[in-house]
């Protein structure tokens, strides 16, 4: 029986709940017992030059082995972001000169025998700066905003000015979204051993191959000399997908000391270690006829990028042309250099940020026209992808609307703002559309079968905690035809067949495709062996006539003529096969591949005190076929929780005088807590997609896209007040 599509429990669940799973920071030291600890000293100013570093006291402190500054750090070679790493990474070469570009940039690294000694010594390093006036936020630098025609070219479809001129109604609004930090539970951890032969790196990363290639490039090594391992991850949300300084400085420390070195960033340092979601200002204009049919969509965004601007920045409006069928669409983006870290992806860098304004503006348009917000979206359903003009590979959006609305009870919504109440609370219902590009990465898998009938599937991918181990196991077990208990997954090691990054909602699609190919290849291989094996009951059968069920191979029509994998393998040794998934090329595509969703949410607002609680959330998603409804549901819950944070609580607050982050800790930066999280319901609208292997579109980001704007819209419905500046804290509703 097929196990794909079944809600099996996480295969690594027991290891995790019993504490047996070793995360990077918990790994026992190598046999040599020489593990030492590094602690970074981070810049206290956001812009300027280091004029002196007094490290005498620190060097003299107990247990200190090494102190690295720009004076003695190994020289690094540049790591071209686009070419080596892909887009959106901070490639600033740290500890190479006296320049400071953002507060929190590492300016020294102390290595000591214990974490306590290293921490103490780090606190003794005295750094003096010649401070310069930083650009603290994009508002301070907006006069110098610039275009990036190469990476954020304007999109122009039709004639927006005409479309606006022809409109019966025009909505013209500006929204702001704050900088946010990813804050996975596990902070960034790296352990490096550097020997003459090999550099072994244990690191909490979403992309082991990127860390390998990056380290090899910057230290002038061959990629084969670097082995990167990341078995268990405590989340990442994009922060661990980006190239970042903690791994680099840990490698420096390992090289200089010859010891195995570990560096675990503190929570405070996580505000300038792995990048952030950029602060943005988004102006949206929607033109529509009286019946709500859109005549124009224009979006003009300004986003922050780092002062040294070393990487292609995000084009947060890149998906704006996709959700609605509209003949005239234009999106532009400009950038402001700010003394902050380079923005990196955070659980949907494009749709998750850029559609907040579009989905809010759609709600404003609905209110203006007196059309139900869901009906407005239905009327603007795009029959094909407006951006590329291509037909959809599959599209379940209308069914998401329908099933989500039914489940939520949307038809009972009184359209009038402030019309629904629960005692002293105002009740608001809001919804939004979600879309997310569905893609995959080149990925290789190997499946191996032993004489005990047990198999292992290996892919150099990573499991963020999302369920990659589990779905790999399921898909490979089905492909080979063995019970799921007989299949084991291995991942997170560059010694394994190369996988892609765990980001962009690509992992499930990539890993499943490769695991399936490898499993099927191995099944075919063993069948060929069996039919040629005189000792086998299958001997002489045509390979096409051999079926496999539950690890038992038999001839079609005669179940008694067969034997188990284990029996074949006992005579024929260990067998393995590989599978290589190559994603369809983007150029020359004949279809547009997207996942779809619809969020429906209920909020209760205390009109007197301005507090907002989300009390119910229904999210319907069409992401092709769901490999495991249980891990999928858990993805959706996590995504909705992040959306609640985005809408109501999370913002990184910068002191506009000196560009330093003020709320660098968990009691200042508010992620939602259990009490903020309501009952969340996930509905999966399943679709077969002939253009996508296994019909797997990916869930990681669609799980959160749409949630924040739905909440914003619900708050308007509850209160009649439109907040266009996220997050909606109580003060904004007074």
């Amino acid at each position, binding site marked *: 029986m097929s196990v794909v599509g079944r809600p099996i429990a996480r295969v690594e669940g027991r290891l995790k709940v019993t504490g047996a799973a070793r995360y990077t920071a918990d790994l026992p030291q190598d046999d040599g017992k020489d593990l030492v600890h590094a602690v970074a000293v981070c810049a206290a100013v956001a812009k300027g030059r280091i004029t002196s570093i007094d490290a005498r006291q620190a060097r003299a402190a107990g247990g200190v082995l090494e102190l690295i500054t720009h004076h003695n750090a190994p020289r690094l070679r540049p790591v071209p972001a686009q070419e080596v790493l892909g887009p959106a990474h901070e490639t600033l070469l740290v500890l190479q000169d006296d320049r400071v570009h953002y507060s929190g940039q590492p300016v020294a690294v102390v290595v000591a025998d214990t974490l306590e000694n290293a921490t103490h010594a780090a606190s003794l390093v005295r750094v003096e700066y010649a401070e310069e006036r930083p650009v603290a936020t994009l508002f301070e630098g907006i006069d110098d905003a610039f275009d990036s025609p190469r990476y954020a070219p304007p999109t122009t479809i039709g004639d927006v000015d005409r479309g606006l001129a022809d409109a019966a109604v025009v909505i013209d609004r500006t929204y702001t979204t704050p900088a946010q930090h990813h804050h996975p539970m596990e902070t960034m951890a790296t352990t490096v051993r550097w020997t003459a032969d090999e550099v072994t790196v244990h690191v909490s990363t979403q992309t082991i191959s990127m860390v390998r290639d990056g380290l090899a490039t910057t230290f002038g090594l061959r990629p084969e000399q670097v082995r990167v391992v990341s078995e268990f991850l405590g989340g990442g949300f994009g922060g661990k997908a980006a190239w970042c300084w903690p791994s680099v400085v840990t490698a420096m420390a390992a090289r200089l000391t010859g010891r195995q070195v570990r560096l675990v960033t503190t929570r405070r340092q996580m505000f300038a270690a792995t990048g952030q979601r950029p602060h943005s200002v988004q102006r949206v204009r929607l033109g529509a006829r009286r019946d709500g049919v859109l005549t124009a969509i224009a979006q003009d965004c300004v986003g922050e990028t780092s002062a040294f601007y070393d990487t292609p920045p995000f084009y947060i409006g890149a998906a704006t042309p996709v959700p609605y069928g509209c003949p005239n669409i234009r999106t532009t983006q400009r950038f402001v250099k700010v003394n902050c870290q380079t923005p990196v992806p955070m659980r949907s860098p494009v749709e998750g940020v850029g559609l907040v304004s579009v989905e809010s503006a759609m709600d404003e348009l609905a209110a203006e026209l007196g059309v139900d917000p869901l009906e407005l979206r239905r009327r603007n359903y795009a029959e094909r992808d407006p951006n590329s003009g291509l037909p959809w590979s599959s599209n379940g959006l209308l069914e998401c609307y329908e099933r989500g609305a039914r489940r939520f009870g949307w038809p009972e919504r009184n359209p009038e703002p402030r019309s629904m109440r629960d005692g002293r609370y105002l009740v608001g219902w809001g919804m939004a559309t979600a879309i997310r590009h569905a893609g995959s990465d080149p990925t290789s898998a190997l499946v191996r079968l032993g004489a005990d009938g047990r198999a292992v599937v290996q892919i150099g991918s990573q499991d963020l905690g999302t369920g990659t181990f589990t779905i790999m196991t399921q898909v490979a077990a089905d492909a080979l035809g063995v019970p799921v208990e007989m299949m084991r997954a291995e991942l997170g090691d560059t010694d394994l067949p190369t996988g892609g990054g765990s980001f962009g909602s690509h992992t499930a699609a990539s890993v499943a495709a490769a695991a399936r190919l490898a499993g099927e290849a191995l099944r075919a291989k063993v069948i060929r062996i069996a039919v040629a094996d005189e000792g086998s009951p299958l001997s002489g059968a045509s390979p096409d006539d051999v079926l496999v069920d539950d690890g038992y191979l038999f001839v079609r029509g005669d179940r008694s003529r067969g034997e188990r994998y284990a029996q074949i393998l006992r005579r024929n040794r260990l067998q393995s096969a590989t599978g290589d998934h190559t994603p369809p090329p983007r150029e020359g595509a004949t279809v547009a591949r997207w996942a779809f969703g619809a969020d429906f949410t209920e909020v209760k607002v205390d009109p007197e005190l301005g507090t907002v609680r989300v009390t119910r959330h229904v999210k319907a998603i069409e992401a092709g076929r769901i490999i495991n409804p249980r891990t999928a549901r858990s993805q959706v819950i996590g995504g909705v929780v992040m959306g609640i944070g985005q809408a*109501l609580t999370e913002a990184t607050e910068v002191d506009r*005088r000196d560009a*330093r982050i*003020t*709320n660098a800790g968990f009691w200042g930066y508010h992620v939602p*807590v259990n009490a*903020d999280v309501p009952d969340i319901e996930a509905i999966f609208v399943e679709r077969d997609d002939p253009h996508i292997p296994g019909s797997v579109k990916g869930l990681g980001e669609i799980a959160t896209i749409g949630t924040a704007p739905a909440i914003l819209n619900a708050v308007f419905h509850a209160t009649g007040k439109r907040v266009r500046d996220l997050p909606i804290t109580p*003060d904004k509703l007074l």
Partner: protein
Amino acid sequence: MRSFSYLSAPDVETALRVIADGEGVKFLGGGTNLVDLMREGIERPATVVDITRLPLTGIEELPGGGVRVGALVRNSRLAADLLIRTRYPVLAQAVLHGASAQLRNMATVGGNLLQRTRCLYFYDGAAACNKRAPGSGCDAIGGFSRGGAILGASEHCVAAHPSDMAVALAMLDAVVEVESVRGVRRIPIADFHRLPGDTPHIETALAADELITAVELPPVPVAANSRYRKVRDRASYAFALVSVAAALNVEDGVVTEARLALGGVGTKPWRATEAERALLGAPATEDAFRRAAEAELAAAVAGPQNAFKIELARRTIVATLRRLLTEGSAA
């Protein structure tokens, strides 16, 4: 490592002797604030004296109707105590509105009274802060000051007092009992926490060698009808933007007794005496509640980022009094 010595005091005498004789001695209660501050390098004690073994864990009824709470009673136990819940519901509610269950299981009454501000700049070693480094200035003024106090601030410090429990104690006229080798003192709660003035680093009337031994709650009959309301940026586990502790007695539609204290807005737990005066004898109406709130907040001073606290405090006071009137102290 910055080392310190650790001693677990077997009895009060030892604890008092060690702190009287030593330099840089700090008591360790639940450690939920002290240990964090040590990690951040803000507190750097030479010796930490663990006082959790001291026999100061009782909650006893006093003759005359008051209650004496030992300084080492954990916050969770205080909130769960039947005597407290019936005589001083406001106190049980205030404690339950603070921190998280895990923290409350550790936190002690004495430690809670002495917890230090959550001003973001106080925690940032690179920022100027008169409270942390006297004379260095105050980066909160003119900075990101959304959390700042609107009552009792000075040009030297605008940090809000973070405790919820202490707001209820202020409302209840609690008395803090302290002891040193020199003897026992009883400090009314109103005098216990100090306004920052030009010495924001001196936060309480407690002398360096004194141990808090107990908090005495006087009989406050009106407190049987009392409640605590806290407004914060998320549903739980966040410090107050504004909080209100209130008790009310109404006869024939007229307020015969009223007690009010505010959290999140004052540089110390803020007894709202002006509001109380305005309420006394006034009709128990929305209008009168608003006037009382305005009387208290007339002295409020805010910057652009925390100006909302004035309006929010006004509304929270009114909302709390109204609910007290309609629902009593039911949580």
